[in-house]
């Protein structure tokens, strides 16, 4: 597959030429394109989601608001934007593990997680997350007990999902900032658990 094709004959050349053509026609502004890149490369990303999760762990009232209306709760932290207008937070418990996929394309909650990683967009994940979630989780090193129910969320409509992972034991004394450091992007998609520092997953 040509996932990282940079040859001049490949998509690299086409993007360059297409951009040039549209700029010449006065239809796109390169500065505007730079701004879009900058936003998604350095401003929007999983640190946003980690802040949301940490706040939910530290503040029970916020957690409740997040689960009731994730759009409004994220707005409290100044987090909003494209692909986040219909955000829903789903909570992991000792009995229920949530996993998010988009089988039809690669819908993803941009404002809280940034742009999706390659594996999330891969055909392997899109095809098997719904039919073999336990197998997929094992490929991420997550082994769930048999009595844990898996809920797979196929975000094929306008709802976008963020998983609220379980707060690991041994983090009771940590503050919100320290908690946010523990929260990985993968744990908010549902393919990882959050572990306390010093413990391997």
């Amino acid at each position: 597959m040509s996932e990282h094709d940079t040859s001049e004959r490949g998509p690299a050349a086409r993007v360059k030429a297409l951009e040039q053509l549209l700029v010449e026609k006065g239809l796109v502004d390169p500065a505007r394109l730079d701004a879009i890149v900058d936003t998604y490369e350095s401003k929007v990303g999983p640190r946003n989601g980690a802040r949301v999760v940490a706040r939910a762990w530290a503040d029970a009232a916020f957690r409740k608001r997040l689960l009731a209306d994730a759009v409004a709760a994220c707005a409290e932290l100044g987090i909003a934007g494209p692909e986040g207008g219909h955000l829903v937070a789903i909570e992991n418990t000792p009995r229920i593990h949530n996993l998010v996929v988009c089988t039809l394309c690669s819908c993803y909650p941009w404002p809280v997680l940034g742009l999706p990683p390659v594996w999330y967009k891969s055909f392997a994940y899109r095809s098997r997350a719904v039919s073999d979630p336990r197998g997929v989780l094992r490929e991420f090193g997550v082994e769930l007990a048999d009595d844990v129910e898996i809920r797979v969320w196929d975000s094929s409509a306008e709802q976008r999902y963020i998983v609220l992972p379980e707060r690991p034991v041994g983090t009771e004394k940590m503050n919100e900032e320290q908690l946010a450091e523990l929260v990985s992007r993968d744990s908010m998609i549902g393919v990882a658990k959050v572990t306390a520092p010093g413990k391997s997953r």
Partner: protein
Amino acid sequence: MDGIHDMGGMDGFGRVQPEVNEPTFHADWERRAFALVNGVLTLTGVNIDEFRHAIERIPPARYLASSYYERWLLAAETLLVERGIVNREELNRLAQPEQVSIALPAIPPKVLPAKARLRAKFKAGDRVKVRSIHPLGHTRSPRYVRGKTGVVRGVRGIYVFPDTNAHRAGENRQHVYLVEFSARELWGRNDRERLMIDLWEDYLERVERSTTVNGKRNSVPAHGKLREKKARTALAPTGRSNRNRSRSKNSGTSETYKPEKRRQQ
């Protein structure tokens, strides 16, 4: 369309391979492609459904051989040509002609859009079956749920209908529902797994009582309280009424969302 993009439940793509410390973009062209396609969407005024459908219209072999941002690029090229903003000769000059996508034609739906339906047809706890439809155009009803029976777990609100909107055949606003399916129903397995998916009202039909679901009698009443009461009296010795009660309690987690306007481009 029953295209290659509709991958839920397919086999053969191998293991999922996560990358450690993955960067947002893997090459500069991906950066530019992401931004450029965003720019093109604004420029062409296409809606999100048209864009998704343009990706789906990439011929299957090409789709599978292309990376995510290549598919975005191919879709953008298609839309620019179809909107008459760039012509095919200009595109061919940009690259080897065989690299430029010749998209499959968009085939609009035959159904005419109806007026916005503001009243939800289903409520939390209702049993629904996903219609076994095979539209030639765009749809967000994945193949793996079609013909399957699930339970409505929430009413999401009113949204533009992708099947018509992707073809500029009207917004056809209607309710979207969160529907839950068991792994047994979808995959014939008994695992402790559920599939949660948001589906538009037109994808769903009501499952009447007395039909069987997963080998069990469906105990959710289809019509009104009165009929339920009558039926309950008749069926009381089976303990059905108790089952009804516990079920409706479980489905009380109804996530009701305020009707919202869907994002518009």
